[in-house]
C-alpha cells in the first residue's frame, strides 16, 4: 500500500509530500506520524508541501489536525513551502490553520523548529519542572 515516507533527523521528523494527497493517504499519514512521534520521542515535525498544488478542505483540516495531535504529544509542527494557489484556496475555504507554524522553505522551517523548541526547553528549565533536555 502507498505510504508517505517519514524521515527521522535527530529529534525531528521530516515529512515530504510529493504525491497527490487522497483521503486514505492522509489518514494513513496521520496514523503513521503519531505513532512515530510517540516511538521516537520527537520534538518537532516538519511537513514540506511544496509539491502539493491541489488541496481541499479535508487535506486542510488534516494539516491542522496533525498539528494538534503533535502538540498533544509535545512536538511542534511547522508546515513549509506552501504554494500561493494553495494558500489562497485554504483562506477562501475559511481554513487559516491557526496553531500551525509556517515557513517559506525547509531551511527556515528547521530554524523555526530549533528556535521554538529551544524556547520551550528554556521555559521548562526556568520553571524547574520536568527533566531538562540536553539542549
Amino acid at each position, binding site marked *: 500500500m502507498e505510504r508517505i515516507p517519514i524521515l527521522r533527523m535527530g529529534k525531528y521528523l521530516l515529512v515530504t509530500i510529493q504525491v497527490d494527497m487522497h483521503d486514505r493517504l492522509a489518514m494513513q499519514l496521520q496514523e503513521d506520524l503519531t505513532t512515530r512521534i510517540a516511538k521516537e520521542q520527537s520534538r518537532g515535525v516538519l511537513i514540506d508541501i511544496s509539491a502539493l498544488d491541489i488541496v481541499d478542505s479535508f487535506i486542510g483540516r488534516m494539516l491542522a489536525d496533525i498539528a494538534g495531535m503533535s502538540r498533544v504529544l509535545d512536538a511542534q509542527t511547522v*508546515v513549509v*513551502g506552501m*504554494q*500561493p494557489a494553495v*494558500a*489562497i484556496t485554504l*483562506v477562501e475555504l475559511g481554513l487559516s490553520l491557526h496553531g500551525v507554524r*509556517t515557513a*517559506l522553505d525547509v531551511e*527556515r522551517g528547521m530554524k523555526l523548529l530549533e528556535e521554538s523548541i529551544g524556547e520551550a526547553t528554556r521555559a521548562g528549565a526556568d520553571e524547574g519542572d520536568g527533566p531538562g533536555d540536553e539542549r
Partner: protein
Amino acid sequence: MPTRLSEIIRKHQQTLLSEWIAELKNALGRKLIKDAELEQQCSAFLKALEQGASHGEAASLDNAAWSEMKELLNNVSRSRGLAGYSPSETAMFVFSFKRPLFSRLRKDLSAAEAADEQWNATLVLDQLGLLTTETYQRTREELITRQQQDMLELSTPVVKLWDGVLALPMIGTLDSARTQVVMETLLQRIVETGSAVAILDITGVPTVDTLVAQHLLKTIAAARLMGADCIISGIRPQIAQTIVHLGVDLGTVTTKASLADAFALALQRTGQTVIRVGQARKMKEKDGEAKDRKERE
C-alpha cells in the same frame, strides 16, 4: 426609382461643402481639430455620400456601396471621441449637413420632388448619425475598459524594500476583485524573492470598513500560510477610530502608524540593522584597536 441625391451633390459639391463647413463651425463653437482636417473629412464625406446614394438603396446601410462611408464615419467618430468631443457634437458632424442639403434640394427641385428627396436624405443621414454615435460610444467604452485594466495593474505594485522585506503600497478602494489581484501578486512575489516579511501599506486606501478589513485579513492569512509575516502600516488616525468603532479585530496582526516604523520592525525581525556611516566607522576603529591590543599581548 434612383434618387437624384447623388446628382445634386455632384453638381453643387463646392457650394454644399462651404455652406456645410460654415454651419459646422457655427454649431460646434469650440475648436478641437484643425480646419484643414475638418475640410478634408467633410469632402470625403460628400464623396462617400454621393457614391452611396448613386448605387445603394437609401433606406438600408447594409449595401456594399455604403462601406466606404461607414469606414469614414468610424474613423471620424473615433478620432473625435479621443479628441474629447461630446456625443452630440460628434453626431452634429452628420446632422449639420441637413440644412445646406435641404435648402439646395428646395432650390433645384419642384416642391413634390423636393419633399421626396428630403425624406430619402433624412433617412440616410439619420442612420449615419446613429452610426456615428454608436462608434463614439464604443470608442469611449474601449477607453474606459483599458483605463480600468491599467488602474488595476498600476494600483497593486509589490516592491522589494530590502533583502527579505516586501512592501505593498495599496492605493484606492479595496474590493473583492482587487483583493484577489493583490493576494496573487503578493504571494507570487513572496515565493520569488523568498521574503519573510511583507508590509501592507494602506496610506492610499480612503476608507476601511468591515469588508476591506476582512479582505486585508484574508491576504494576511494567506501570506502567513506560506510562512511570511505581514505588517500593516499607514493607518491614519481617522481609520484607527473607524476600525475600533466597527469592532474589527486586528488583534493578531502587527500594525504600525507609518511605513518607516514598519520597515524598522521588519529589519529587526529579519535580523538586520541600518546604522549611520560615522557610527559604522567608529565601530570598525574600535574593532581594529581591540585586535591590535590582542596581537600585542
